[in-house]
């Protein structure tokens, strides 16, 4: 298949089909509606499952059921909808079931707005569900990267028996770019889902149970320790980032997704003016690419964390920096996208931006 011009949300849907999705459960919310709309047509036409649920709460629990039964399953939503899904996400993570959750961020808090935002960084990486769990969170920057990530996400989820979240914003969901759907996905050995609750006829002599209840405190702690071991392995194997224009930079910008796109333009403008600026672009937000910060030159003048939110990823930047460099912050919120000139200005007047 040659490159096609496609809207982000529809590309998410087609990528999921290419990734072998068996079932989608979801509830309408702007700005991600083209995902379920596309899937409603194309999944049902191919004998797969598409079901519009009565709420986001139900959708994520349908995902839990189908994931437990061994299906490749996904849901998609946006900020307030993801908030409603947090309960189920915690249970799915606890029960170690694989699934894909697509989050197309809009402005918050509350109903907020429907314009692109990155204000759900905490929601994705810290989670609103209870307990010590983590998702694997990817924040692609282009529609091509979205497609490649979605296709691979099902394998990654299956491999680690952990939910994967692909985090984009309304801009990526709504814009069009040319994209190739047939780029090969990394080969992984995926064991049989011999844990699936699909009836003991499929695994005589053994009952399979999908469960998050551990009433014995010792067993619960052991389960938590096991989860943490798994997250360590994920950190080791699945951390992703891109170093952009990283040639002995004076300043380093840290930005992801749509904000990284804007910063690329700003970096070009700054370079033309002779100011050397590079960028760390985290692709995995959990695990966070802390090791990328080791590559920042000792004499760099500072790190600018740029977000379409009011300082959420900033926490991870401060942790990763660990006091080595001055850290400044630039943030816009509620769907207000900055021009690259604003980033240029923030670098030129870095001292005004320093938070630590």
């Amino acid at each position, binding site marked *: 298949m040659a490159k096609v011009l496609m809207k982000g949300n529809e590309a998410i849907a087609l990528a999921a089909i290419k990734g072998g999705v*068996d*079932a989608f*459960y979801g509830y309408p919310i702007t700005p991600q509606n083209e995902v379920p709309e596309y899937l409603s047509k194309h999944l049902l036409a191919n004998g797969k*499952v598409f*079901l519009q*649920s*009565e*709420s986001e*709460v*139900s*959708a994520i*629990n*349908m*995902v*839990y*059921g*189908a*994931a*437990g*039964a*061994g*299906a490749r*399953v996904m849901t998609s939503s946006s900020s307030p909808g993801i908030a409603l899904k947090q*309960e*189920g996400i915690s*249970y799915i993570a606890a*029960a170690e079931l694989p699934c894909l959750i697509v989050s197309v961020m809009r402005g918050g808090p509350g109903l907020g707005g429907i314009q692109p935002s990155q204000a759900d960084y905490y929601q994705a990486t810290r989670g609103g569900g209870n307990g010590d769990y983590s998702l694997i969170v990817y924040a692609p920057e282009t529609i091509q990267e979205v497609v490649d990530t979605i296709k691979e996400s099902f394998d990654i989820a299956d491999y680690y028996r952990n939910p994967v979240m692909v985090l984009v914003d309304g801009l990526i969901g709504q814009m069009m770019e040319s994209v190739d759907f047939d780029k090969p996905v990394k080969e992984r050995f995926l064991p049989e889902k011999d844990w699936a*609750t*699909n*009836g*003991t*006829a499929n695994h*005589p002599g053994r*009952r*399979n*149970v*999908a*469960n*998050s*209840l551990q*009433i014995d405190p010792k067993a619960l702690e052991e389960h938590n320790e096991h989860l943490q071991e798994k997250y360590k392995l994920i950190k080791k194997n699945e951390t992703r980032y891109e170093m952009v224009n990283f040639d002995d930079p004076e300043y380093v910008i840290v930005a992801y997704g749509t904000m990284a796109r804007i910063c690329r333009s700003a970096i070009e403008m700054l370079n033309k003016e002779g100011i050397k600026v590079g960028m760390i672009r985290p692709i995995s937000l959990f695990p966070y690419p802390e090791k990328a910060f080791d590559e920042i030159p000792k004499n760099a003048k500072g790190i600018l964390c740029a977000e379409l939110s009011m300082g959420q990823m900033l926490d991870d930047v401060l942790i990763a920096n660990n006091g080595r460099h001055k850290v400044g912050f630039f943030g816009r919120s509620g769907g207000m996208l900055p021009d690259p000139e604003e980033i240029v200005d923030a670098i030129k007047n870095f001292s005004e931006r320093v938070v630590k």
Partner: protein
Amino acid sequence: MADTTVKYEKTKGLTDKPLSYCPGCTHGIIHKLVAEALVDLDVLDKAIAIASVGCSVFSYEFFNCDAQQAPHGRACAEATGIKRVLPDNIVFTYQGDGDLASIGIAETIHAANRGENITVIFVNNAIYGMTGGQMAPTSLPGQKTTTSQDGRDTAWTGNPIKISEMFATIESVAYLERVSVHDPKNYLKAKKAIKKAFQYQKEKRGFSMIEIVSTCPVNWGMKPVDAMNWLKEEMIPVFPLGVFKDKGADNE
């Protein structure tokens, strides 16, 4: 000992795990009926049980089949997710009145309205058992609970919600019956109803639910026999027994 005849043995539909229910509670009887139905219909090895939150939270350890444990109220959503990807398996939820009639009423109504081909075993004992006897949406007017210590005030908290009556209005429901297990006659009726619900699912007729009016001696503060009598005299007038919907019978 040469000519031993087996007159009775425990159903293979239950594991050997000791039940966690309080003495005198009817959950044990209901578990047995559900398990026997699965064995009688030869579907135990295709069955997936959904345990809910409440006293039956551990039921995934008791039914001798695959199982999933659902968040509070979400059993019917989870069952939907499974059944849609495994349409030839037998999927059932086992839920109490707090789980189904309060926090999970949306999930349950919409599963029924979609005609999900699942079976819901709804145990209604008019109280929150697991958490220690709080008022349920099904609690009777004047019923004393730990959160209605002077008795349920209907002007303040409403009247007992009647699930079977409500669900009878839903077009896609295939079979709906309210039963009780407080005496042998009703026990046999309940046994028949539960088996029929699973039979309907096996025949892909759609959503089936059996509401079982039940006791909670510990949280009602009664001896088991008194609890059975209270069920008969106080609960059944509010929750009358009978078949509320039977699409099979309508069509035959």
